[in-house]
Every structure is written in C-alpha cells, then in structure tokens.
C-alpha cells in the first residue's frame, strides 16, 4: 500500500511532532456564508463532473425547439395564422424555461440522493445553521440550471431570436430567478422524501401540468376561461411571460402580432407589469425556500 509507510510503527512519532491543532470558530454570519459557498461550490463541481447529465439535460429542450418547433411551424404556415412569426421564436422563451426547470429539479433531487448515500448527514451534523445548507443548495441549483439554460440561449439564432447582449443578459437573469424558485420548490419536496424514485415520480407529476399550463408552448391570448384561470394560478406562467416579452420586444412586428403572441398576463383586464411578475417569482421562491429551511430544521 503506497503512502502508508508514514503511518507504520517507525513513522509514528512524525505526526506528533508537527501536530497542527485547529480551532473551530464560534458560529456566526461568516461561518454561515462559508457554508453557503462550499455547498454551492459542490453543486458546481458535481455538475461539471457529470457531463452525461449536461448532455441529457439538453436533449429535451433541443427536441422541442428544433423538432417540434420546426414541425409545427409547417402547420402554422399552411394555416396562415402565424403570419410572420416563426413558431420556434415563439416557443424559444418557453423552451428556455423548461430546460431550466428540469435541471433545477434535478439539482434539488440531489438532496434525496445525498440522504440515500449518507452525505446529507455529514452536512446536517456540521456546526452551521441548516438555512445556510438549504440556501447554498438552492443558489447552487439555480446557477447550475442557468448554466444549462445558457446553452439554449446560445441557440437563439436557430430560433430567429437576435443575439442582442442586453436581451441575452435579461434572459439569463430571468432564468436564474425562475431556477431559484424552482429549486426552492424541489428542495422543499426533497426535505421529506427518502427515495429517488419517489422524488422523480412526484416531480414528473408536478412538472408536466406546470409546464402545460404556463404558456411556455402556446399564447395566453384568447384561451377558454377555465384554461385562462389555471394559467394565471400557475407560478411558472410568471416566469415564462417576462422572458417572452423580452424576446418579442426585440422583434420587429406589427402591434397586432405582438398582441396575439405576447399579450402578457392580465388580471381582470389589467396587464401585469414585468417587474411585478418578477417580484412574484422572487417572492414565491423566497417563500418556498423559507418552508424548505423550516423543514430541514426539524429533520434529524
């Protein structure tokens, strides 16, 4: 066994001589920030190492954007309803949101994985507040998801979306916000679930309806009342809409087409401003994070 020579009987005195005793400091904000940082850092390290996950996370959005988008735009062209708007351009913000959503959930799911493989215990017995661990996990998950989303954003040209630096920055920022809220949701669910299979079954159950009711894949304008109400109750709607409005504001379109495809969300006829939508998403994210923290305080 290489390296064990130092630990043999002959080398026994060596570690005694140069012993470095460290002192663990009192808890405090600095300690908690360090904990947030290292938990976050681990998320990035693991994401970076898991290339397969990176690639597999891209398959679904790319399929939607290039295959479904192209296929269905054919339909729209013959129907004539699209008039000048490429379906790919339309669903682009939705696809960005979807890719972020899946990655964020996967990151949150790693808590369940950590529990199954014992690593969660290593974190929970550390002398740091549970909130710093949960916050680190959420920010880490959101960053990873945003990085994954950045690859989709890089495909903007294929969807007829201009490479405007401001637009790209806006999209990235919004994706981060949405990813943060979604990771919060995932972590909250993961707090009580002990098996990966159950977690993913549950996530599948929550994510598909959320996606279908978010306006990621169709315009919110002129929906039947029941569907319209459901979309307005869906938090994801408020994450997708600002992204679509950002993309459409860069397109040279007639006001009519703008209204058809990017009508925004209305509450009783009042157009909800983008800032309020973003505040809503951030608020929901913070709320979910709070619940997640409370749940982790109560687990042993």
């Amino acid at each position, binding site marked *: 066994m290489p390296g064990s020579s130092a*630990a043999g009987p002959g080398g026994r005195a060596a570690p005694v001589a140069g*012993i470095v005793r*460290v002192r663990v400091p009192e808890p405090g904000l600095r300690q908690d920030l360090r*904990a947030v940082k290292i938990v976050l850092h*681990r998320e990035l390290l693991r994401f970076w190492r898991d290339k397969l996950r990176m690639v597999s996370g891209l398959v679904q959005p790319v399929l939607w954007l290039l295959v479904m988008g192209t296929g269905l735009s054919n339909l729209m062209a013959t129907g004539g309803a699209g008039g000048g708007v490429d379906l790919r351009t339309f669903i682009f913000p939705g696809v960005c949101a979807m890719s972020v959503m899946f990655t964020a959930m996967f990151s949150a799911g790693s808590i369940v994985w950590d529990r199954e493989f*014992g690593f969660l215990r*290593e974190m929970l*017995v550390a*002398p740091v507040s549970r909130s710093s661990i949960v916050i680190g996990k959420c920010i880490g998950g959101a960053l990873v998801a945003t990085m994954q989303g950045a690859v989709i954003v890089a495909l903007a040209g294929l969807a007829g979306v201009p490479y405007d630096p401001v637009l790209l920055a806006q999209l990235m920022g919004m994706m981060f916000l949405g990813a943060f809220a979604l990771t919060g949701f995932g972590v909250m669910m993961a707090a009580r679930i002990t098996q990966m299979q159950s977690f993913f079954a549950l996530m599948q159950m929550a994510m598909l309806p959320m996606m279908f009711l978010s306006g990621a894949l169709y315009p919110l304008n002129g929906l039947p009342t029941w569907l319209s109400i459901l979309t307005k109750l869906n938090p994801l709607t408020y994450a997708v809409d600002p992204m679509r409005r950002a993309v459409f504001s860069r397109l040279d379109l007639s006001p009519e087409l703008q209204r058809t495809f990017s009508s925004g969300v209305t509450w009783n006829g009042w157009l909800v401003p983008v800032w309020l939508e973003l505040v809503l998403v951030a608020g929901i994210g913070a709320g979910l994070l709070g619940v997640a923290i409370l749940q982790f305080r109560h687990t042993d």
Partner: protein
Amino acid sequence: MPDGEPAVEVDGLSKRFGDVEAVRGIEFSVRPGEVFGFLGPNGAGKSTTINMLCTLLRPSGGRALVAGHDVVRERDAVRRNIGLVFQDTTLDGYLSGEQNLRFHAELYGVPRQAVGERMRQVLEMVGLWDRRGDLVQNYSGGMKRRLEIARGLLHSPRVLFLDEPTVGLDPQTRASIWDYIRQLKDAEEITIFMTTHYMDEAEFCERIAIMDSGTIVALDTPESLKAGIGEDRVRIQTSDDDAAIAALEERFGLAAVVSEGAVTFSVAAGEAFVPRLFAELGVPIRSVNVSRPSLDDVFMSFTGTTIRDAEAGAGDRNRLTMRAMRR
C-alpha cells in the same frame, strides 16, 4: 474543557421510539483522553446512544454533556467539538478524497491558513496522501473508512465518535484501522468513544460498557470485567483422564470434564493453581494450558447469551446486505 472534567457525562439518558424504549436511563462518564467502548449486539441501543451524544437525536429524558456542553441546549458547541465516523459511509463518491476533506473544513470553519497543512497531516496519518486526488467512488471499503476517520479529525475535535468503525471490513483492514486509532490517541490528545460488536476489538478499549436491551449491564476495564468472572479455564492432558478427574474431585473439590481431548475445569487464579496441581494431583500431566475468561464469557455472564446468539435475533442481516450492494 478544563483538565479532569469528563469528556462525556451521561445521566439518566433515555430514548423512546413510540412504544419501544431503545435506551433506558443509562449513566456513565468518559475521562478525557480515554478510549471508551460500547459493546453489545445490534439493537442493544448503542447507535441510539451515540446519535443522542452527537446531537442527531433528541433524548426523551435525562441529560448528556459532551466536551462540557449540553447535547440539547448547546447543540452547536457540541458539534464543534466532536468528530464523527458513522457505520455507513457519508462521503461524496463523486468528489475526490481531498475535495471531501475541503468541504468538511469549510463547513466547520477551519481557519483557511491551517486547512492545507492540517489536511496533509490527517491524510498522511491514514496513509491516503498519495491517493487524495482520486475520486472516492474508486476507493476500497477500507480506504473510505480511513478517509472518514481523517475527515472526522480534520477540525481537531475533543471527542471522536466511531460507530462500528470496522464493521464490514476484512481482518487486515480492521487491524490497520486499529493501528490508526491507537496512533491517533498518542498524537491528538483526543477522547475516543466507539461502539463495536467485535469482542476482540473491545479488548483494545481502556474501559468498556456492555450494553444490552437499552441498559448498561457492566462497565469497567476489560481486565476487571474478566477478573470479575473470577475463574480461569484450565486444560490438562494426562496419561489417565479418568483418574485425573477423580483426583480433581477428591483433592480439590473441582468438577472437571473431558472436552476436546483434554481435561477441562474452571478455577480461580489458575496460574497460581498450576504448581499445586502438579504437586498434589498424583496423575502424570503431559501438558497444561491456562486461559483467562474472554469478553465472550463476560458478555455471557451478564446477559445470559453470547453476542452472536443475541445478534441472530436482530435484523442486521438486511443491513449488511444493503451495505454490500452499495459497494
């Protein structure tokens, strides 16, 4: 923790899970610098006790101080002063050994300028310095356990808790883990609190508490525990076994039987008895063997069962299978 104050002090500690009373009001204290062992079959309440001492479980009753801090009211203070090595691995297999340690150092707030040197020290101690860059998922079972011991020491804890540190390892690796534990004790002025269900390992502890069904049935040094049983086992080979048995009965009042080809009997202070035996037995003796009672005998005398029999009832076979699958 001033000198002389116990490293661990437990008073009336109990834990109940629903109707099951896993730990029933136990009481003991561990001196600083001691290697203290909890011996008992699976399901005796050892892990429950260790989890309460590590602040992972809230006691149902009683009080426990670790490194001078209350495990309920001063949870963080306890956590800063203890190191933990669990039965099941708690490493991240997707990170390297070094990254696992760095994660721990950051989480425990080890001062940045000390991290590098301290990390090298603990890794060298367990002989993993050369393998620090490898992913932990490529480590063997013994290497993982050694890495966990190194990690448990990284923040210079006062008390190191080892929950079955050698379970599931091959004998050679077990021996090397024990080498590290002994070396550690010399090097780090640390109190070691461990649980085990291996009798031979309990021998290495300075004091052991025998736990059975949630209570401590005996607590002392292994020597005193064995001495408490009183009698040594003597095996002699003679030219005439029947005559020897009769003579033992007649002259010494000892009941002997033939077991595995030797006349076997129990007697107090067996070594001192041997000269008398030779002088007075009157039957030629070809060989003699005196053995001290083992911890197995001690366990048997306190619990009325051997540890292996006690375990056969507990459902640890499932757990061992799980562990094997995980690897």
